[in-house]
């Protein structure tokens, strides 16, 4: 159902369309299901990239489940005419448990070579030879002799493919290659710049790399990358968007990181309630559209849909997960559509999950968050953001609140 971007016409179809494990990826899915949100920074990012001539380095962040991957996919789609976009996940290319700035910069170079080959982009032999020599030098001890017919281009493609596959999988390769790259970092940047210029010349488009999932490494690793190695990550002369962990924004060293990466964009959650508790109709409508773009309106009662939006916290994945459980409850009760009872049961399930998860101390903290609408920069509050029991909202300013499904637990004696 989700793969084919169809609108579900029955509850079983809706259950499979509302799958919390699947972000939107393909053009077809984006066209069918994407719901723009108020205060999304993606339009700002698009304008910044289009209107500035100098390469930008951008940090992009948001709560887990807030839809970062989907928004970036949407951005890619809207920039395709002006930009040659290289989008990849470090998780798929590198060992995320053992990651350094050298790996990231090198993976960027390898990804550029591979994408250029895939798209049949013409790169001059002089540049290819230059890159080939460098790649051979850094990988000679770990990649066996390559014999490929077809000249420099074929040889380069084979050696890059081999190195790419080994870099994520083999510790020996990483150690050896890092050692060599660390002494020749300026050569690596020079190669990236040369290739970038060739790609831009050949395609008539500027180059943009989107490096995803850096927010999924552990915080210490990410902090080291962006704090201690900011110069390396900023050096390539092309625009790069790095995803960045939300929790690091509450770290004491964040301002230092910000000095190196002034362009930070936060993807806000949908905000079904305003800071004063009043209902925000624009956001409620948008959240409701997440359901009605995936499943026919006759599958849910209007009041139930509104209740769903209000209780979802405004995080799309939370909305989708509660909606899926509501559909399951409707199936269990042998109903034709989701009514308020089904939604209430789904919400109660979600509340029970937090009932097991939250310690008494966390509940006390959450009461204060609810009252003061703010958090402090400490480990305890960060853990609340991590498990989504506390959430950040932003419109004209930034404020915090508790997840609506958690609220009943705080009111309990």
């Amino acid at each position, binding site marked *: *159902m989700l793969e084919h971007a169809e609108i579900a016409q029955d509850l*079983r179809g809706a*259950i*499979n369309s509302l*799958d*919390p*494990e*699947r972000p939107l990826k393909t053009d077809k899915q984006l066209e069918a299901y994407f719901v723009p949100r108020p205060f999304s920074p993606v339009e700002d990012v698009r304008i910044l990239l289009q209107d500035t001539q100098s390469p930008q380095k951008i940090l992009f962040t948001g709560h*887990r*489940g807030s839809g970062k991957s989907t928004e970036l996919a949407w951005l890619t789609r809207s920039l395709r005419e002006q930009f040659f976009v290289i989008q990849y996940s470090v*998780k798929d290319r590198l060992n*995320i*448990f053992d990651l350094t700035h050298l790996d990231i910069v090198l993976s960027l170079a390898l990804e550029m070579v591979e994408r250029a080959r895939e798209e049949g982009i013409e790169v001059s032999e002089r540049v290819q030879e230059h890159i080939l020599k460098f790649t051979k030098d850094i990988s000679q001890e770990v990649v066996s002799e390559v014999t490929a017919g077809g000249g420099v281009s074929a040889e380069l493609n084979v050696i890059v493919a081999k190195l790419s596959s080994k870099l994520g999988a083999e510790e020996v390769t990483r150690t050896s290659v890092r050692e060599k790259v660390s002494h020749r970092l300026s050569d690596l940047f020079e190669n990236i710049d040369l290739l970038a210029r060739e790609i831009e010349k050949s395609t008539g488009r500027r180059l943009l790399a989107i490096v995803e999932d850096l927010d*999924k*490494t*552990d915080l210490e690793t990410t902090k080291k990358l962006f704090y201690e190695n900011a110069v390396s990550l900023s050096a390539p002369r092309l625009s790069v968007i790095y995803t960045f962990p939300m929790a690091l924004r509450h770290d004491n060293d964040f301002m230092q990181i910000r000095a190196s990466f002034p362009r930070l964009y936060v993807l806000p959650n949908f905000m079904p309630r305003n800071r004063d508790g009043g209902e925000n109709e624009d956001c409620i409508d948008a959240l409701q559209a997440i359901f009605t773009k995936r499943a026919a309106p006759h599958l849910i009662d209007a009041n139930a849909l509104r209740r769903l939006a209000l209780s979802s916290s405004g995080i799309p*994945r939370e909305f989708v*997960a509660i909606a*899926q*459980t509501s559909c*399951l409850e409707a*199936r*269990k009760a042998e109903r034709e559509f989701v009514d*308020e*009872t089904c939604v*209430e*049961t789904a919400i*109660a*399930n979600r*509340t*029970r*999950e937090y*009932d*097991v*998860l939250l*310690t008494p101390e966390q509940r006390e903290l959450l009461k204060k968050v609810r009252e003061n609408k703010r958090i402090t920069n400490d480990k305890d509050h960060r*853990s609340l953001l*991590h*498990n*989504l029991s506390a959430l950040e909202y932003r419109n004209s300013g930034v404020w915090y609140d508790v997840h609506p499904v958690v609220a*009943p*637990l705080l009111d*309990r004696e």
Partner: protein
Amino acid sequence: MEAESPSQVRSVADEIAALSLLIRETDSSVIAFALYRSVADREPVVAALKEQLSVPVRECVLSAEHRNPIDYLRALPVGDRRCVFFYDVEAAFPEFLGYVNIQRESFASVPHAAIFWVTEYGFREIGTKAPDFWAWRSGVFDFRSVRERVEPPALSAAFGGGFEFADRGDLERRVSLYEGLIREQQAADSPDYGFLARLQNRLAWAYFELTRHREAESTARQALECAQRAGDPAEEATAESTLGALAIESAQFDAADAHLRRALEISSGLAQETGVATASHRLGILAQEQQQFDEAEKWYHQALEISERLGLERYAASGYHQLGRIAEERQRFDEAEKWYRQALEIKERLGHPPLAVDTLAQFGVLSRTRGQFPDAVHWFCRAFGIAAEYKMPVLKRIEVDLALTMQLMGEGPFTAAWREVIPNQDPPMGLFRKILRDLPGGPGGLRASV
């Protein structure tokens, strides 16, 4: 409108129904958590769920050595959707938390439903330390409300058919289950020694099947002690019989004889015919190991008479298989084939593929001995497919048999014969070549038997 209060606890039956519904209604991957308090409470729920779920259940026990559930999911056949129960999740901390948090998308790349059985502690750790993974949950099912004391007899009933039909995953799960139950029973104010002996006997046999012989022996001795303390001769006979089987494995034939004759004596005294049949069958194996084929045949026929009369088909199939082995040792190949066919007919009829693996492989050995190499490949490939799917310990020996057959018939004809049976998968030639290189003393030194 009836809103549920969060303090309301849903019944176990409701939770089972809800989990079954989630599995039935979804087509793609699912991540869910099942909360439980104790192993004793969990098992009847697991048994009930297995009955109700619409897809086959596979079980995987995580541990400090096996910490990554994604490896297990990726190894499953992609064609059919499975529901996988992961147990002892907490034993795989903290590495488990890192793996799942970072590789959460990998769950979406397989069609299976992954259900993680966790305690409150485990659930909190996942929610706190693997929040990205936790956020992908499709549901949490709370079985902590199983409050009523589950009495040992009821619990035993939940074990169903015992330990006979066990693939490796199932055996490992059973080890985890029995270990947990034994810990809980030992911690009780007044342990039920009879129940403890029963559990220890089952644990010892699971260890035996996993070739963890030292642990099997120590556990069987504990079972013997508990059975004597409880005055339970039936469990005492089981422990003696297991010790006998273990002694055969370590070629301590006198000790094996003493244990098995003691088991036979107790079971005969109790008029417990199943015990008599088991001890007789093992005495047959003992005689066969010592090349005393007439003696072995006598014991096998004695065991078979009881198994056939009581309709114990699986036991009877084992008897036919062993008689086939003796006929084969005596170079009576037609007779061996007749016994193996009888064994295989029953095993295939029982419907659990792992049961047939040893006989399929033995057919392979027989065909190879007769110089019928393509037939040998046919039988070994069938055994290989099942053993690989069920991760059976015997897989390695079947790989050796295939490697030997490849050497005898040449790689080209071997590959052609393999493709007749498994057209969609090339033989792992690299593995087979390595096996042949590593064989101590060359292929002649290896006894190919299952």
